[in-house]
């Protein structure tokens, strides 16, 4: 079941209202609400054309260490540019060149930002980054 909420509604207010509504729904439904969620979206217009080289099947895979030992998080970035892969060494063409300026800017922004693993444990450092091809 899906509806629309007033723009600018704080997430805690929205979730409280949804929980209230789920009680009212339960009273008229033979089903049981098991999950409720509120989503805020932003769309970019006008769009710029994608580069010809980009293909969503080429996935830049970033493995992050978290502040909890032995716990890692993964970010999968579709359309990763193959021009940003290492060109020397045994993992050339596979590992992402993390010294490249744009790549290191992305890594820094993720580590310095609000981002965490799915259990809200902060990301601490990049453990590994490589290209994965999806069929």
């Amino acid at each position, binding site marked *: 079941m899906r509806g*629309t909420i007033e723009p600018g509604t704080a997430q805690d207010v929205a979730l409280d*209202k949804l929980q209230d509504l789920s009680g009212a729904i339960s009273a*008229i439904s033979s089903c049981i609400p098991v999950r409720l969620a509120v*989503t*805020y979206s932003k769309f970019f217009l006008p769009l710029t054309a*994608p580069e010809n080289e980009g293909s969503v099947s080429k996935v830049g895979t970033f493995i992050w260490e978290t502040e909890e030992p032995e716990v890692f998080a993964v970010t999968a970035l*579709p359309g990763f540019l193959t021009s940003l892969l290492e060109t020397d060494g045994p993992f050339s063409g596979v590992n992402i060149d993390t010294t490249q300026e744009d790549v290191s800017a992305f890594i820094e922004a993720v580590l310095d930002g*609000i*981002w965490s693993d799915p259990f809200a444990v902060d990301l601490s450092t990049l453990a590994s980054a490589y290209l994965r091809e999806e069929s």
Partner: protein
Amino acid sequence: MAFASKPTGDLTYDLVDSSGSHAKMQLHFPVATLVAAVFTAADALTPLIQAITGCTVLSFSATYASADSAPAAPLAGSRIEDKGRFIFRLANTLTTKLEVPGILDTTLLASGAIDVENADVTAFLAAVIDSPSIFKGVDASDITAIKSAYQAFRRSTKNMLPSGRDAFGGA
């Protein structure tokens, strides 16, 4: 019914490549982070993503979710395809729709309309309409009144089919 927030919200980017294929990228953030802070961080990350992919970022969305880890059992025989369809009037004269899965037969009139004088239905309508309500039309227009309400069925999708389908009683 005891809903608890997930520890994190999900930020999802929607990307498109030059062939027109779409893909999503997801990050997580602590659930207490305000939407404005998430959008600021996501905005900052957008050009960095575009710089290392050949894709265009179409949009991003931040989702906060709660789940009931021990929900009560649904009523026997309940089916989500059996909908209660509520059409609401909007302040701008358009309409918007909400569909309640598994509408109870006890809320229905013989005609197939939903009894809007039923106490539980009235409570549901009040939760959707009454000021101050956060629920709006898709264009953010206020919901002002119920226009029509009736039972409606929809075709089962694969996900809607019962989990137990074996003719001999297996899973």
